[in-house]
């Protein structure tokens, strides 16, 4: 039977640098990746609705990279990079904020789609 929606991966492989840099790949739980990104790109003092909007966008962005095999289709052995120039800001060992972590747990498995498309929407929040 065909799968009607993308499966959220348990883990995501992050390249710790720009795509062609000689950096390590690390495999981490998908929710931990989102907590890391969100705790680096937004602050815990922001209004709660802004935090929620950002987290949804960050989940959708990452899932879009996985769903479209953006890097793997180009021959790389990772799903996403840690560089905010190419993807979203990720830093190994970064601290999380509890408030942001709770929002990620609340929204985990949700993502944004456009119209009736199946693929997670490629989106960023400025």
């Amino acid at each position, binding site marked *: 039977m065909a799968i009607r929606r993308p499966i959220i991966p348990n883990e995501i492989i992050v390249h710790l640098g720009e795509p062609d840099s000689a950096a390590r790949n690390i495999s981490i739980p998908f929710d931990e990746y989102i907590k890391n990104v969100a705790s680096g790109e937004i602050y815990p*003092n922001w209004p709660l609705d802004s935090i929620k909007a950002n987290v949804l966008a960050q989940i959708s962005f990452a899932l879009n990279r996985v769903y479209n095999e953006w890097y793997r289709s180009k021959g790389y052995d990772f799903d996403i990079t840690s560089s905010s120039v190419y993807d979203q800001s990720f830093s190994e060992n970064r601290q999380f904020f509890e408030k942001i972590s709770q929002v990620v747990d609340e929204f985990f498995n949700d993502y944004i789609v456009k119209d009736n498309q199946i693929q997670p929407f490629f989106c960023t929040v400025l």
Partner: protein
Amino acid sequence: MNVVSYEEFKNTLEYENFIKDNPNMGLLKVQVFTAYNSIPIENTEVVISKDFGDTKVIFFRGLTDSSGIIDNISLPAPAVNISSYEVPEYTLYDLTAINVLYEFIKQYLVGMFGDVKVIQYVKMTPKVNEESSYGN
């Protein structure tokens, strides 16, 4: 370098300046894991310190519980304006985690914000016994 406790530091002039800049308290939760976050590591010693010139002040020292956690470590931090888009100020502390059965020592810089709870994961891998690390 001199090492002093937080209680001793409170009797110094430097403390008055420090607490003026850090009037609020932030909370820190430390979680220590191994095996890709699946196994907590208990009895890991966690030390939170900060250097003031040639003096190291120890703000906290404790052991993780059976869940690999030390929760609600209270540390002085700048006030944060909640529900605003201002970039908040923070104070950096050194976090050192020590466990002789694992990687022995790991160090992190943790930024503390007033009235904000911060979570720091510490991931350790077991110490490998060279003689038993090869297959049959």
